[in-house]
């Protein structure tokens, strides 16, 4: 019996040892997974963006406001501002989303709904977090599939697939845990940039209350419960709501 127990333990140790040894190999680098995904993301970003039928507003007070908030977040967190392609679009919908290759789209409806720059900063920080944590490609790979994404870039897939990609990124939330990760990362960005975390929570809370109104609050309705999000954002930011 003792011998069998010793052998069982040894077998487990052999398995664990092989697993540990193989874990030390950088398979992702060996199989060039990250390099291929980065190249794919760049191509997809350009294709999806060029497929959007709305015109981007590149100047005016609303764009300047958005740009200054984005600059503040990037500066406070050592992020490369030039990497983020900011697009403001004329649309009453309260929405903002990230596309592959750091394209960030914000609708004018969201700017109008926000009462302060700090409220906008919360949304931008959340979208930057999705980009930096590579959530955009993770979501696309899971929902569309790696091979179909590659076939888009090689021209083998039709325009319908690009529209599907766009639909997924503009009007559906990420996995619940990814949304929470993005919220918590956003809090970190806001704190580093010395921006008001409470304003972000307040904005979510207010949008949650207004969700039944005439203007579609896509950014809220597609995401997890805004009040619950506001709670953990305040907790992470260690501030209290009035």
């Amino acid at each position: 019996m003792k011998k069998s127990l010793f052998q069982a333990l040894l077998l487990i140790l052999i398995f664990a040892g092989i697993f540990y040894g193989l874990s030390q190999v950088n398979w992702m680098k060996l199989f060039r997974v990250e390099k291929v995904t980065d190249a794919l993301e760049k191509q997809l970003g350009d294709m999806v963006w060029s497929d959007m039928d709305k015109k981007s507003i590149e100047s005016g007070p609303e764009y300047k406001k958005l740009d200054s908030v984005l600059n503040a977040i990037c500066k406070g967190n050592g992020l490369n501002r030039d990497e983020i392609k900011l697009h403001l679009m004329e649309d009453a919908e309260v929405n903002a989303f990230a596309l592959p290759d750091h394209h960030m789209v914000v609708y004018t409806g969201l700017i109008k709904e926000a009462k302060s720059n700090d409220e906008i900063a919360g949304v931008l920080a959340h979208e930057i977090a999705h980009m930096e944590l590579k959530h955009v490609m993770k979501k696309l790979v899971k929902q569309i599939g790696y091979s179909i994404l590659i076939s888009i870039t090689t021209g083998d897939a039709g325009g319908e697939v690009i529209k599907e990609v766009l639909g997924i990124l503009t009007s559906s939330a990420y996995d619940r845990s990814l949304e929470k990760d993005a919220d918590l990362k956003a809090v970190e960005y806001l704190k580093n940039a010395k921006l008001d975390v409470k304003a972000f929570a307040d904005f979510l809370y207010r949008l949650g209350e207004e969700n039944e109104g005439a203007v579609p609050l896509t950014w809220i309705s597609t995401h997890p419960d805004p009040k619950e999000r506001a709670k953990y954002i305040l907790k992470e930011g260690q501030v209290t709501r009035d």
Partner: protein
Amino acid sequence: MKEQNFSYVPDEQELEKASNGYIMSLVAVVVGLPLPVINLLATFVFFLANRRSTYFVRWHCTQALLSQFSLFLVNTVGFWWTLSVLFREDVEISNPYIAYIATVLCFNIGELVLTIYTAIKTRKGEHISWWFYGPLTNLICKS
């Protein structure tokens, strides 16, 4: 793994049945490669069917079942991890995942080779006792 003397000399029919205990897990590989439970189920069903058989047959069916069971445990982890990688947005391909799958693959190939070898030897009338599984079978399977 070593060849040992059995307590009696089994007849031709026993040798065939005992060898089939190992073959069952191999047949199931073809059907249930992505589903780790199939191999175990096939071996378990064969074990049940022969639980009142002679000592030699029961002994080898038990050894085959025990080896399949431990393989089932590590394969199940790999199976659910793979499903998570495929369908969950918060789980992605990583170095530990590839390392685990490679480890499981090594163990499966090793077990497959041993199973084929033991099935052939058992059919020839040689009593093969595996390292760890043999002594464990001795503890479970009584004459």
